[in-house]
């Protein structure tokens, strides 16, 4: 005994298959890549604004550029480029198992890390306290032609805890390096621990 599948069932099966294929296609094309899933979560704001991430709170007060710096610990760093000096105040929000391990300036496709050459004269890689900020400078050594380029108009300052901010907050502030006047020398104070 053979049973014939009704015509409407054949059409319904075909339509069902098409719907499933379309849904599968949409899911496959909209699923974030591994890189996107692990990417840092940007928290955007402006210079002078206090930004809050998961375990970082920071305020950048000023950005200066100079041919040389005189740090609070007496260090003076010669450079063939220029120093971008960022005055910031940074603290942890949840746990002090955190350092300011990620402080970078992105100009175009190029990223520069905060220099550790001045040693304790900056807050780069400083261990952060919960609710008690460290205030001090970050120093970035950049080539002179770069800060005079068009890309410098749309530079980004990026701050995060640990040197690998994947899947964690990253504070991002736009900074127009092109418009900042280049000084001969910038003097900085030693980092200070405590509420300002």
């Amino acid at each position: 005994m053979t049973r014939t599948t009704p015509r409407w069932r054949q059409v319904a099966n075909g339509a069902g298959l098409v719907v499933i294929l379309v849904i599968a296609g949409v899911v496959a094309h909209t699923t974030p890549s591994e890189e996107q899933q692990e990417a840092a979560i940007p928290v955007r704001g402006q210079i002078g604004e206090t930004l809050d991430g998961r375990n970082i709170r920071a305020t950048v007060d000023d950005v200066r550029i100079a041919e040389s710096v005189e740090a609070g610990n007496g260090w003076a760093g010669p450079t063939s480029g220029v120093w971008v000096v960022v005055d910031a105040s940074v603290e942890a929000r949840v746990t002090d198992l955190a350092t300011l391990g990620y402080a970078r300036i992105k100009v175009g496709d190029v990223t520069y890390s905060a220099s550790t050459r001045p040693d304790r004269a900056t807050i780069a890689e400083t261990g952060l306290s919960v609710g008690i900020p460290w205030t001090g400078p970050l120093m970035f050594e950049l080539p002179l032609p770069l800060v005079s380029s068009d890309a410098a108009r749309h530079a980004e300052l990026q701050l995060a805890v640990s040197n690998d901010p994947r899947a964690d907050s990253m504070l991002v502030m736009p900074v127009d390096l092109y418009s900042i006047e280049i000084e001969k020398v910038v003097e900085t104070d030693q980092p200070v621990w405590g509420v300002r």
Partner: protein
Amino acid sequence: MTWLRRNWIALVAVAVLAPATVGITFATQWTEYFGGRASAPTSVGAGDTAEFARADWSLTSSRRISGTSAEGLEIGLPAGSDLVVVTVRVSPEPPADGDETPGCLVRLEEFDGTSVTRSWGDATLDPISYTAAEGTHSYCASDAVGPYTLESVFVVASDAGDELALSVTVATELPRYLSFRL
């Protein structure tokens, strides 16, 4: 209807096995995640003694020094901070031959009800001028053969609430840890 009747066993099997598979997969992942970190606190009240990691532990005292007080200024606390000093009496069991009493990690946790909102690590190496009480240890003394007093200091934000607890973690006891409510 006929199709459903014909396939009811397979449909029930899918309805049971699919959520069971997802549940077991997640349960395994979460068990491993929580098993490797301090996630099972044993609360110890004031005056109580807890047996943990081959030692008896009891909270002896705790005090909070305001950063704006004369003592706080003398210690050189950063602006906007307080110092919390906690002492715990530790009585290790006599060690077996070649054995040591366990080392530990202490942290101060701020609570909002039952959940931890913030935590601070020991401030022994922070740039302050606190002098520890005579005869106390600032760390879990793994070479101790008798009872000793552990004194832990924490530089906390002055807006930290009063719901604070000292957590004591010993690596070999995870996920269990002690929580002394101050």
